[in-house]
């Protein structure tokens, strides 16, 4: 039978994995919540973050790319919103969906052309090498760092949305854009900013995932599916939902690997089906008139 040590380690590992899922999903969730847009290119921005880090690392080091790469991805996001997405807001929702889907394929192909189809080595920084034991819990130092950085990023996003004036406009705009516009607030810039922020978070997730997973063009596909599942389970557009759902998925995957490994990929879909049957809007999904 499984001893407590192993069980505890798996639980901890599942939580860390869960935070990684949260980080990948949170940008997707924010963009959906505010813009009502499903960004299929989220995984591609995630991959872009990793590839920019790969190229810039020799010049600015790991800590440098951890700042620089997400900011660059965010900036690219701003441009994409301004040039490609803004003209589509008042059109059929299907059009922006198709656009982000096309963009995902385009970016992935661009990565393949510029950096090649082959994977690139990308190690964790040496100061985060090794692992730590806390009683029964065994975790690598790098994963621990990912956990801390994710929590800091999530706290910053939460504080921004809940405690600042700008955040209040964003939240109001996401609920009733027409009313907010009538109050004389220019929502165009808010939308652009939010899309950029979502892409920045995707880029940050990409940099952090690069030492754990492979830096290959297909990393975009590998990220987008769990991100969707997490957002759907948590409730579209809910930050709290994304966090709870991400941790749930992480722990379920770890536990499934312990007891029934062959089902470890399908478990998140099973979880999603169960949640959707019980709560069709997801765990923390509220009734929003815009989306009904």
């Amino acid at each position, binding site marked *: 039978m499984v001893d407590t040590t*192993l069980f505890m380690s798996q639980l901890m590992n599942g939580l860390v994995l869960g935070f990684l899922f949260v980080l990948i999903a949170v940008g997707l969730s924010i963009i959906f919540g505010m813009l009502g847009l499903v960004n299929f290119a989220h995984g591609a921005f995630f991959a872009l973050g990793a590839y920019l880090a790969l190229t810039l690392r020799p010049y600015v080091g790991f800590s440098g790319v951890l700042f620089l790469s997400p900011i660059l991805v965010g900036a690219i996001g701003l441009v994409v919103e301004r040039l490609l997405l803004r003209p589509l807001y008042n059109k059929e929702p299907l059009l922006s969906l198709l656009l982000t889907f096309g963009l995902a394929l385009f970016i992935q192909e661009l990565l393949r052309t510029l950096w090649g189809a082959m994977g690139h080595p990308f190690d964790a920084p040496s100061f985060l090498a090794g692992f730590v034991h806390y009683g029964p819990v065994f975790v690598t130092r790098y994963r621990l760092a990912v956990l801390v950085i994710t929590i800091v990023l999530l706290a910053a996003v939460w504080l921004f949305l809940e405690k600042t004036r700008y955040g209040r406009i964003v939240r109001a705009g996401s609920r009733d854009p027409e009313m907010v516009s009538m109050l004389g607030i220019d929502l165009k810039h808010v939308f652009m900013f939010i899309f950029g922020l979502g892409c920045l978070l995707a880029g940050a997730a990409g940099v952090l995932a690069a030492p754990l997973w492979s830096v290959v063009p*297909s990393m975009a596909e590998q990220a987008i599916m769990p991100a969707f599942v997490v957002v759907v389970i948590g409730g579209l557009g809910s930050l709290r939902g994304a966090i709870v759902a991400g941790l749930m998925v992480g722990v379920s995957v770890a536990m499934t690997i312990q007891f029934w490994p062959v089902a470890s990929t399908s478990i998140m879909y099973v979880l999603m089906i169960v949640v959707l049957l019980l709560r069709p809007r997801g765990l923390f999904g509220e009734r929003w008139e815009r989306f009904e």
Partner: protein
Amino acid sequence: MSNMKDDKNINITRRGILKAGAVAGLLTSSVGPFIRRARASEPIKLGILLPKSGTYSVQGEQGHNGATIAIDDIQGKVLGRPVELVWLDENGPQTTQQNMHKLIQEHKVVAVQGGISSGDVLAIMPVAEREKTLLMATGPNATEITGANCNRHTFRIDLPNYETVRSVYPSLSKNGKSWYFLYASYAWGIDGYKQMREVLLKDGGKVVGADQTPLGTTDFSSYILKLMAAKPDVVFLGIGGGDLTNFLKQFHQMGLTGKIPLSSLICNDTDFWAAGPEAASGVFPKIWNYTGSQNTSVSEQFIKKYQVKFGKPPESEAWQDWFGCTAILTAIKETGSTETNKLIEFLEGHKFKGYKEREMYFRSWDHQLIQPTLVAQVKPKITSKYDYFDIVAVAPPKDQPIETLYGSKAETECKLAPA
């Protein structure tokens, strides 16, 4: 916001689509009869099924690159006709099967080569048999492809698991006989586990753990925690492509690289190149390696051409598809024909000399390419970006018959239907 949709705009789009459809229709109807007329100068088409995306996409690119070198070798022509490669995606059994049909029916290919995943190859083998088209399976390793499921139209370049596990076992068993297995949950991994376990148990060894991993797994950390707890003498893997890269990186981060001996059913250089020198360790069966004194002058020429054309060295998959394409082209040239039956008869009887240290041939009763296998060990210190392996042995040793490790007719369970 959706109530503000612009009807006019959508109308134009619809009309645009109709127009585009009409133009496409015109094009196909005028081009159609032209294609149907066979001409002497018409190209000989060869189909390629290799992954363009997913876990094995890197091998797919290498394989396709390799095949193009085989075409360059003959200056792009055989029997006075130009040779053309048609590459469609290998992406799961169903898509691969559809693309196989497309190659045969639409593109009228003379033969099809490729296939990395055994699951995909097992799905297209019946199509090859039914459509009477030669299938040169260059990259799959499940034993049953030239074993229980063999058929007359399928030839296989890559090594069967039955052979690779036996070639590498002696180099691993000296580390101890308590083994942990981690293998992909489809035909290749499942067969490989069965084969290696049989060898291990017969030798008095013990399986301390065995886990199946779904293809495309990104995070192996939970698997690694499990295998650490089991304290095995050897970890034997049946995963490849991006999955192997991810495993190696995470195994390294958990401080296990070089601590627990590692091996796998087969290995591709690209999986290691992507993981980086720090994360690489272990002893592996390998079909071909671009460095080492075992390479013949023919191999050396291939390496040179590949490096000039693509700017990096070829890995196993590139060699496999280069040789696969070369074998098909040799058969077409020597028989002066593109007729499937003639090609099969030629391949069943021909000896390929100069490609490896010993001559290679397709066994006439199971269509497996009989060839020596390399036992490759990751270098203690890797100095070049692409040169990871030392060849520590060639199996079987020179004094033993070359078929030693491939199993007898009874053991392979292959029964080919007569022509």
